[in-house]
């Protein structure tokens, strides 16, 4: 582990070790407290029991020497100190007179003893000049406190015991700490290593190396982070590819019309043109290519706007059927020219909330494509149906159709089904991707179904608004 105090592993390590040490210390003090208390309580009970058993031999009257000797004999065989006191002065009998003498028992204790209760003591006793745990039981004859049995154990012995206990404790704790530190360090290393891997990988991504992948070993947060990192790297990679492709496409698309313009212009300038008719033909070609360039640049600007957040839709309620019919008016002549059979089934109900200009752009694009790719004598069917909360526009043609392999990509930028014939189709290859974007911006969706040689069906679903808008 590197000695970098700011590193996460050191912080985690310190936190865990501190927590372990604190809990050990807490457990130790708690155990000391309970040990001492339970032990002392047990000791007191034992002392009271011992004294009570001895006291049971007292049969009343003056305390005899025989009784005292018995207790003395017991004392000699026993750990605790036991003795009988029958000196009234020691028993605080003279207390109202404030005799200048430290009695063995206090006035309160005397009162308790007179009531027949045992007295338990703990603390420093001046008489014995040591800390003791003591129990006193009264020897009562006819309410008279004839004497007491005093039994005590010096607390020093408990302290010694506690010290012994503490030594063992500390040894065990040290062992535990060493083991805990060892395993914590190992575990933390294992835990942190994927993060380090991700860090290294992130550096490499920032250097432009996008195909790097971090190994996902676990399913915890770090595992998920690694997975997310991999996804992110993939996305960046893809985006980079797309950007590259897009630029290539743009360059390619611009180059062709430019070379036409350049070529014909040069031809005119060089005087290669034989007559006015030919010159006019060349100028028409130049104009057409300039128009293509203009449309291409316009589409590119549209796309760039659509991609940015600043794109604003000016939405108004639109009676969709009427709107479609209005747009179709512009196609009357070309339809007639191409002898196409146009079938309309438009439900007048749907009212959509959309940007008129953008809706027109969408319809133009779809109709353009249908008309363009349908041979003379074919038919185009336009249907509008109101559903519960949305409406569905279907434009079905009997055109060339799109090969199945190309179908998923037709709405990608610059994607062309027939790469070879593209230049004269007039499209920039951006139309459908702009349509898709615009439909989505108006909360709708667009789908294309197609079969080669059979025709294509374009479905546009858009949300409708309620009747109130009408009124």
């Amino acid at each position, binding site marked *: 582990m590197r000695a970098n105090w700011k590193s996460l592993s050191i912080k985690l390590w310190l936190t865990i070790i501190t927590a372990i040490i604190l809990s050990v210390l807490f457990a130790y003090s708690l155990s000391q407290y309970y040990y001492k208390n339970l032990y002392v309580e047990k000791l007191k009970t034992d002392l009271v029991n011992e004294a009570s058993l001895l006291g049971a031999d007292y049969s009343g009257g*003056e305390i005899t020497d025989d009784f005292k000797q018995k207790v003395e004999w017991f004392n000699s065989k026993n750990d605790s100190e036991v003795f009988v006191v029958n*000196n*009234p*002065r*020691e028993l605080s*009998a*003279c207390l109202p*007179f404030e005799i200048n*003498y430290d009695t063995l028992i206090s006035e309160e204790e005397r009162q308790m003893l007179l009531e027949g209760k045992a007295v338990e003591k703990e603390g420093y006793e001046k008489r014995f000049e040591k800390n003791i745990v003591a129990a006193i039981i009264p020897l009562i004859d006819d*309410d008279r406190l004839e004497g007491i049995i005093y039994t005590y154990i010096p607390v020093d012995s408990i302290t010694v015991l506690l010290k012994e206990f503490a030594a063992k404790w500390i040894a065990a704790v040290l062992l535990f700490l060493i083991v805990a530190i060892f395993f914590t360090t190992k575990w933390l290393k294992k835990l942190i290593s994927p993060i380090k891997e991700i860090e290294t990988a992130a550096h490499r991504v920032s250097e432009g190396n996008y195909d790097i992948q971090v190994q996902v070993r676990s399913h915890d947060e770090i595992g998920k982070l690694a997975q997310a990192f991999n996804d992110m790297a993939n996305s960046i990679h893809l985006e980079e590819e797309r950007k590259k492709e897009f630029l290539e496409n743009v360059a390619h698309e611009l180059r062709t019309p430019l070379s036409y313009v350049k070529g014909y212009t040069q031809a005119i300038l060089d005087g290669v043109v034989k007559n006015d008719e030919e010159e006019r033909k060349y100028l028409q070609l130049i104009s057409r290519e300039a128009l293509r360039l203009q449309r291409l640049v316009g589409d590119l600007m549209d796309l760039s706007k659509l991609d940015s957040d600043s794109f604003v839709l000016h939405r108004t309620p639109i009676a969709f059927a009427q709107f479609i019919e209005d747009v179709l008016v512009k196609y009357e002549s070309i339809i007639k020219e191409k002898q196409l059979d146009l079938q309309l089934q438009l439900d007048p109900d749907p009212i959509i909330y959309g940007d008129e200009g953008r809706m027109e752009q969408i319809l133009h694009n779809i109709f353009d494509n249908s008309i363009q790719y349908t041979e003379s004598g074919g038919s185009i069917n336009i249907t509008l149906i109101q559903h519960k909360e949305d409406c569905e526009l279907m434009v079905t043609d009997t055109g060339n159709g799109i090969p199945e392999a190309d179908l998923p990509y037709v709405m990608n930028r610059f994607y062309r089904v027939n790469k070879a014939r593209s230049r004269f189709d007039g499209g920039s290859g951006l139309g459908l991707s702009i349509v898709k974007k615009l439909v989505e911006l108006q909360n709708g969706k667009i789908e294309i179904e197609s079969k080669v040689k059979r025709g294509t069906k374009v479905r546009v679903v858009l949300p409708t608004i309620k009747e109130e808008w009408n009124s």
Partner: protein
Amino acid sequence: MKWGIALLLAVLLLTGCTSSNTFTKINKGESFLATVNIKDTSLTFIDENYHAFATWDISEPFTGALLLADKDTILIYGKEMEKVQAYSLSAGKLINSWEVGKGIVNMQLLHDGKSIVAVNQSNHSIYFFNDEGEEQDIVKVGKSPLTVLQGVEENRLYVINFGDTKCSVINLETKKVDFEFPIHSSSTGSLLREEKDEIWIGGHGDGDQVEENLYIYSASTGELKSKLKAPTMPIKFLENDDGIFVLSHGTSSLYKLNDQYEEVKSKVVGVNPFEMANFKEDVVVAGYDSDEVYVMDTETVDVKKTIKVGEGPFQFMLRE
């Protein structure tokens, strides 16, 4: 009408407040034996038929009470009390208090019925008051004086110094210490037999030594005349027609002696008794730890009756 009710309520309220400081009234003609109970600081009044009939629960740390010559005023005193308090028995309330300062452990009424002697342990002095509580004289004596005894014939006051090993004898005429004589330590309790030139002094003993004897000194010279065995810790003496009674609290024993100081009877009585008195024809003993008063037959020294009193009866106060 409303005013009347309000006034009535006010009067009830006021009397209610004042009555909380009054005690059971003790009729003037009534004889009683009262115990001063120092553990619960109360007075228990017992009538001639040995029935406790009143308890005064006084919230003062008092250790003694003295009945004055008017047989109605009692003085309450204690070492920790700043003032000596005067109560009227018949009114059952505090009527006066004397500013004497802390340290009073004993008070006695002298035979003239006017002078009051107060033993002050805080400055080891004897104070003389008139019955109005005015200080007349102060006489310095030995350490921690406790027991005082008036010798009528010689007009003397014997002061037994509990914390000292001497007895101070004050001339009541001159209010000066006439002479002092050595006595044993922790001495208390005394009996003056002037006709025999004897002063009997008991005690508790010294250190862990328990006093077994009572000492008889010459009342005029202070010379130790004799020692009598009275185990253990004789602290109270009494003489009547039946003999001399000695109360030893260490063994809770009551001894009855004849003229020749021979023990004629002895009895274990009470629990840790400190106080004994003549009441009517009987000898009464108070058991400090048993909270009881024992009425003894003076002839047989048998307990005739036991009366429960307050906690820690330490002193008697009689009115006959």
